[in-house]
């Protein structure tokens, strides 16, 4: 009897804790994003007080990556989340259709392969037979695969090394690998440390990454005005970044605690613009969906998701027509 009472008490406590966590104050919106340059527009909007100007009390939660931001969104812990398009490519396979992308905030060509010249790498073809590090399931994975394929190298002809983002810099600098597929600021910092020994291969045609703004579909439709206000604030940040590039760089540098020189050097690799080119996005996520389906064991027996259900331009259209 006592055991049954204890179980019921524990279950009630869990229910209470979870429901408390999910309650939110009115007029307050929560925004899950990451401390990196991709997330520049949201950070500028916050720093310049554009959310407040639009009547929103935006509370920012900084999470490690888009993957965590998407989880926060799906689990109802945040109202808005910045996620990369690869997250949607994978998420589509879960069959969960509660999330929609309502805008893209940046298209980035900051992905690349940094290699050591001292290991005989002077052109992409030299990567054959070399130790190439990549982060599985991330933009680094996609870039590495597409890049070597484009240069006529099969995946089996490269010694691919799985590595996590945190260890990439140390691995290249220490010479544990000959090259690494990564992104900025890693590429910039590694290049700076290695000096003449570093060579960087970038290729926007092989891969361009997108940071998008995602919301829960039901919540967004029930809070149309809030979503429009949020987008208005981001639009202001977009215009500000274009008109005051240096000031925008300073804000981003301060917000993400990244050296201003690094921000300036890599700024133009990030095309910050609030828009939603559905065809462009669908092309990106579809091709990734096919790649996931063909290369990952867990997904080979699953159908390619209908990704068009994950993009909705209604809110941005409303914003543009309200001008």
């Amino acid at each position: 009897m006592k055991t049954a009472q204890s179980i019921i008490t524990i279950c009630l406590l869990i229910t209470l804790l979870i429901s408390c966590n999910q309650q939110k104050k009115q007029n307050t919106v929560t925004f899950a994003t990451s401390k990196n340059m991709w997330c520049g527009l949201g950070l500028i909007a916050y720093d310049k007080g554009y959310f407040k100007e639009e009547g929103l009390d935006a509370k920012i939660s900084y999470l490690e990556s888009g993957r965590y931001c998407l989880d926060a969104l799906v689990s109802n812990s945040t109202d808005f989340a910045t996620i990369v398009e690869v997250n949607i490519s994978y998420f589509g396979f879960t069959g969960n259709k509660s999330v929609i992308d309502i805008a893209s905030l940046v298209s980035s060509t900051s992905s690349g392969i940094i290699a050591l010249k001292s290991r005989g790498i002077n052109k992409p073809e030299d990567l054959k037979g070399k130790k190439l590090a990549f982060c599985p399931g991330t933009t680094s994975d996609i870039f590495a695969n597409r890049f070597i394929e484009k240069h006529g190298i099969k995946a089996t002809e490269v010694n691919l090394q799985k590595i996590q983002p945190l260890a990439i810099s140390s691995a290249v600098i220490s010479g544990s690998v000959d090259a690494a597929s990564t992104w900025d600021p890693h590429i910039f910092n590694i290049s700076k440390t290695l000096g003449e020994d570093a060579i960087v291969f970038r290729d926007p045609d092989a891969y361009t990454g997108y940071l998008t703004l995602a919301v829960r579909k039901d919540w967004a439709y029930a809070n149309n005005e809030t979503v429009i206000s949020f987008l208005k604030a981001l639009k202001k940040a977009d215009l500000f970044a274009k008109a005051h590039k240096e000031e925008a760089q300073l804000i981003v540098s301060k917000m993400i605690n990244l050296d201003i020189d690094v921000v300036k050097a890599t700024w133009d690799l990030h095309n910050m613009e609030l828009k939603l080119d559905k065809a462009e996005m669908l092309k990106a996520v579809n091709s990734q969906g096919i790649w996931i389906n063909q290369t990952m064991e867990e997904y080979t027996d699953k159908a390619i998701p209908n990704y068009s259900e994950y993009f909705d331009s209604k809110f941005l259209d409303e914003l543009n027509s309200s001008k």
Partner: protein
Amino acid sequence: MTNDIKKWFLKVVKTLGGFVVVLIIWQFVHSLSLLEPTLFPSPKRTFETLFNIIAAGNILLDLSVTIIRMLAGLGLAVIFGVIFGLSIGLIKPLYESAEGVIDFFRSIPVTTLYPIFVLLFGIGHSSKIAMVFWASFFVIALNTAYGVIQSTKVRRKVAKLYGASNIQIFKWITFFDALPQTLIGIRVAISFSLIVEILCEMFMGSEYGIGQRITESFTTYAIPELYALILLSGILGFSFNRLFVVFEKKLVPWVGKL
């Protein structure tokens, strides 16, 4: 006979009771969708996935890589930790001067030191083994030293009175007096070493390993696999612990009986 069966049955119920309660809560949370079902699979789905992963067989390579690296780091830590612990335990001035340094280094979360380990040992097996060694060494060394310090002086004095040499006293009295505490250190280190090994794989990346598989499942939204692998790592840690308890009882049967 009936009483024996009753006792055995009660023991089984007591042992499994906690697990059953956890499963009931898990199913309860899942059934009521208290957590988003896409991100939180049911126990049934998780166990099915775990079964499928094991049946597919490729997890064996990940398991063996994780276990081998963990045991390599732990084994080195046991050898060097026990020798070092015995030394500082026997020589008081050495213990006094080493205690602060050991306490300082063991207080640093080993995972924060990964950049140094990668620089020193690269991204292969060595850096992970070295981190497991680092995490386990201090706890074994300190417990061994405490064991020596706490060893019974009376027995040593009696042995001396009977003409035993210092080596004999160490070999037959001090070492065995310190053994229970040393084994406590090793038992704690076993948990540490598995945690650190899996964390290293998750932080630094690895071609194979349970931690690597967990990170990949997380990144690629293979959620049932993710929970199945978490469960598997729990089973692994639990099994090591239970095995060591059995070994401990055989090695120091007098503990708790004197």
